[in-house]
Structures are given as C-alpha cells and as structure tokens.
C-alpha cells in the first residue's frame, strides 16, 4: 500500500497529514477524536534534522495533554550515513526521538507503529520500534542488513546464507523474520479498513513489553525471554 492509500484507509473522514522531504507529520480525526501522525516515507534515510522534526511533533502532542493516539508510519532507509550527521550527534537525535515516543507512551498516548515499506537500523529503532505496539502491512521489508552485505561481512557464500535464512529467522532480513522475533506484533490485512484494525490494536495494547515473549512463542528468539527472566530472578533473589 502507498502512504496515501494507508492514510485514506486509516482516516476515512479525511486528514491533515503532510509529507515534506520524506517526513510525515499531521493530525487526523480518528475513532471519534483525533490522532497524531508522524513517519518517514519513500525509503528516506533519517538524519539529525528529520529526527528533531519528528520529535518536535511528538512533544507537541504530549504537551497538548489530550492523550491522543500517536501513529508512527514508516517506510524508511536506515539512519543517514554521513560525516555531518555523526559530527552533530546523530545518536542523541535518534535517541531523543525514541525517548519522545516513550515519554508520550508514559503520558497516556497509545503509540502504534506501522511499517509498510523498508525500515532499517537506526531509523527503525528510533521510530517504529519505540512504539508500544508495532504492526506491519504485507510487503513491508524491515532489515538490519541485506543478505549480500551479510555475506560480504561474514565471508559466507550467499547461497549458504539464503539456505540458513529459511530455518534461522534470527539473522535474515524480511517481515516474517521480524514477526518471528517478536518485534512486529501483528500483520494487518490491507483488504480490510485499517482504522478498525488499528483501533483493535489500541484496545488490546499490551501492558508491558511483550516482545521477548512473542519471540519465544513464535520461535524467532528461542532463548531471550528465558535468559532475561533468569537474570531478573537471580537479581531479585538478592
């Protein structure tokens, strides 16, 4: 689905969501009230300016105090890879954006991520992965690194990696693998109106971070939940 199609399906009553330089911001009537929207469109890399523009929008929503849902729509490249971005502290800017979303969450805003195209690395972590619940549309392609690049770095033949990817979701790019890992909670049905599906997600927001439980159930992260629980149990034993 394109961003326009997604917005139309999410907000059948219309919306005031704008895209500039690949950055998505705006508000729209939603579920009898309003929703705030931020995002990245068109496989755009996220640099310092973009991160701060999005965090500005999130903080504005928090300051408004109306606890409206914040939807984070993502079809992004990775973080912008440049000398200038790093010089200016890209890690602070991306972390700040994530913190703004986490603060909004704590302040009572349901935060919902929706990936519909590419999503990678720092841009992914700072946006969609910082929401309480992350959904995807079929065809979304979240990745840390594509397989040819993995082959180059690990010095393993591409064919072998492709074979391994079938049985080992933990390293391979692609939506199915991110679902198995637990990072993506649900895959939406593009044939049905998105507004209702997102409303359901908000109604069923998990009370806490359940991603490692999902990863264990779905087999994408076979041991993470048990390891985290074991550490926490030892720590609590005092």
């Amino acid at each position, binding site marked *: 689905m394109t961003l326009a199609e997604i917005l139309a399906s999410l907000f059948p009553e219309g919306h005031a969501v704008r895209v500039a330089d690949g950055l998505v911001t705006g508000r729209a009537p939603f579920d009898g009230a309003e929703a705030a929207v931020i995002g990245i469109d068109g496989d755009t890399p996220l640099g*310092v300016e973009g991160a701060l523009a999005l965090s500005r929008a999130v903080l504005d929503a928090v300051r408004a105090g109306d606890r409206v849902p914040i939807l984070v729509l993502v079809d992004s490249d990775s973080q912008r890879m440049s000398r200038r971005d790093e010089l200016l502290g890209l890690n602070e800017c991306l972390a700040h954006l994530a*913190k703004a979303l986490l603060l909004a969450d704590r302040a009572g805003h349901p935060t919902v991520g929706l990936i519909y195209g590419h999503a990678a690395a720092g841009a992914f972590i700072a946006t969609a992965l910082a929401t309480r619940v992350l959904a995807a549309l079929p065809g979304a392609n979240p990745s840390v690194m594509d397989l040819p690049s993995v082959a180059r770095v690990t010095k393993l033949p591409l064919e072998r990696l492709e074979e391994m990817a079938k049985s080992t979701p933990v390293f391979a790019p692609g939506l199915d693998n991110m679902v198995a890992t637990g990072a993506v909670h649900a895959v939406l049905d593009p044939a049905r109106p998105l507004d209702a599906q997102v409303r359901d997600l908000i109604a069923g927001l998990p009370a806490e971070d359940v991603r490692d439980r999902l990863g264990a159930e779905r087999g994408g992260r076979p041991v993470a939940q048990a390891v985290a629980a074991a550490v926490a149990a030892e720590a609590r034993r005092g």
Partner: protein
Amino acid sequence: MAAPLAAGTDPRALSWYEATARQRVAALADPGTFHEFLPPTERRMSPHLPLFDLPRAFDDGIVVGRARLDGKPVLVAAQEGRFMGGAFGEVHGAKLIGLLRAARDLRPAAVLILFDTGGVRLQEANAGETAIAEAMRAIAELRAAGVPVIGLIGGRAGAYGGGGLIAGTCSRLAVSEGGRISVSGPEVIETNRGAEEFDSRDRALVWRTMGGKHRRLIGGADAFAADTVAAFRAAALDLIGRAPAFDLATLEAEQARLEARIARFGDCRDATEIWARMGVNDPDAVPAMTTASFDETVARVAEAHHDAR
C-alpha cells in the same frame, strides 16, 4: 568470577581501554562486592553462532550483576568489546534486558552500563535490533521511576549503532578520550559514501568526529574521564548524584538543545570549526590536550553543561 591481574597491579589504575569487561567491573565496584548473574559456569551461550562456524563465549560478551559503589547498591552491565566487537546478540541483549527489568523492582541507587559495542551482531541481527529497542524502553521506564542509568564509554569498540542510541537514552554519560559514540561507524560511512565523505583510515578524523573529547564538548556526554578505572568510578559517583528527570521538561530542553546545536553548527564540516565557534581558543590543540587542560577548556564551554538528556 575472578579475572586475572598480574601480581602487584593496582586494579583502579588499570587502563579502562585495555581492561576486559570483567576487570572493569571488578575494579569499578567496591572491592569484593560484585556478584555476577548467569555467570560463565551457567554456559548461557549463543544458540546461533555455531551455525556460522563461529566460537561462542560463556557469557556471550556481557557481564551483568550487582555490586556496591561507595556502599550504595548498584546493578551493573559490562560489554566485552573484544568478543564479536561487543555486539548485541540474542543472549547478550537478553541479559541486559533482564538486568534492567529487575532494576525496576529493586530500585538500586543506579544502573551502570559499561558500553563497549559496535552495535548489532550481524549473525543475530533481528534479535540484537529488537533487544536494543527493548533496552531503550526499559531504560525510559527506569528513569521515569527515578533510577539513574549511567553509561560509561571508554572501550575499544566504543558505543556504535544501537549502542549509541541506548547511550543517548541514559540519564548521564561519562566518556574517555578513547571512547567513541556514534551511530554509523567510519567504515560503514566510507563503504556507503566513499573515502571523500569519510576516510576511515584517518583516525584523527574519526576521533575528532566521534571521540570522547568532541562528545564532551558538544554536550553529548556529561563527564570526561581519564583512561583509568579510578577516573570512571569517580565520574560515575558524581553523575549518579545529578541525573535529570525523565519528563516533558527534560525532553523539551533536550529538543531545544539539539535544535540549537544544529542551528549553530550545522554548516561546520569539521569538529575543529565547531570548537572554534564555541569559543575554544586553539581548537587544533584539543586532541593533544591533557585531561587537566581539557577539563579547563570544557569548563568554559556553555554547550557542555546541561540537564537536557
């Protein structure tokens, strides 16, 4: 579990950059107080690395546990930058998550994260990336609950990729000259954009752009430590006492701080231009400055001092 030291070595005098994660933790804490969770004898190793014909580590490259710091209870996580570049794999990440979740209930005086990481472990990329997101969420919750989360950065792998993002989520950061904080590594930028954009072999450029002194000057870190365990310990104790709240006021202040940075320095090509614009008298002299004279320089730079993190 004990880590070896040659006879007669004062552990607090150890070089942070050179020390292993275990040596750092043992020497940072009050003597004998570190207790490790899921120690190496538990053999919680990566289930994935054997598929890649890669050796595993008994602790998956991270040491987690509790300790006392000047008598105060703290929880500690220390990454081993020499094992797989300190990168986040499934077990590695889960150990950090478990520690952060326990802290929510235990309310220690602080959680210390001794970063030493290149980011996500490629062989377990999805698990690593998800764990980074989980860690950032857990840190936000801890901070909101009033538990300071302090990052210490001075290892050879720095805090790159998702590690740089987690660092940016902490309450306070201490960094040494050798420590680096960034998202994209120099080699990654060079591979994607060419050597004209970033010559990764020009190590002076790497450190000028991503290293501890630059981060401290622009306010990307809150304390500058000499490269010893003793200096990081002193910095950690100081930072615990002045952790900013995690609330709208702090994030509004950070928004303003970062916007001002880009407005003021966004057209600079090199760190030395930024330092000059900050009022540093002899920017070219900064990389060679001793800790003492660098501290004096930092004291005069407004950008370096803030509660906006």
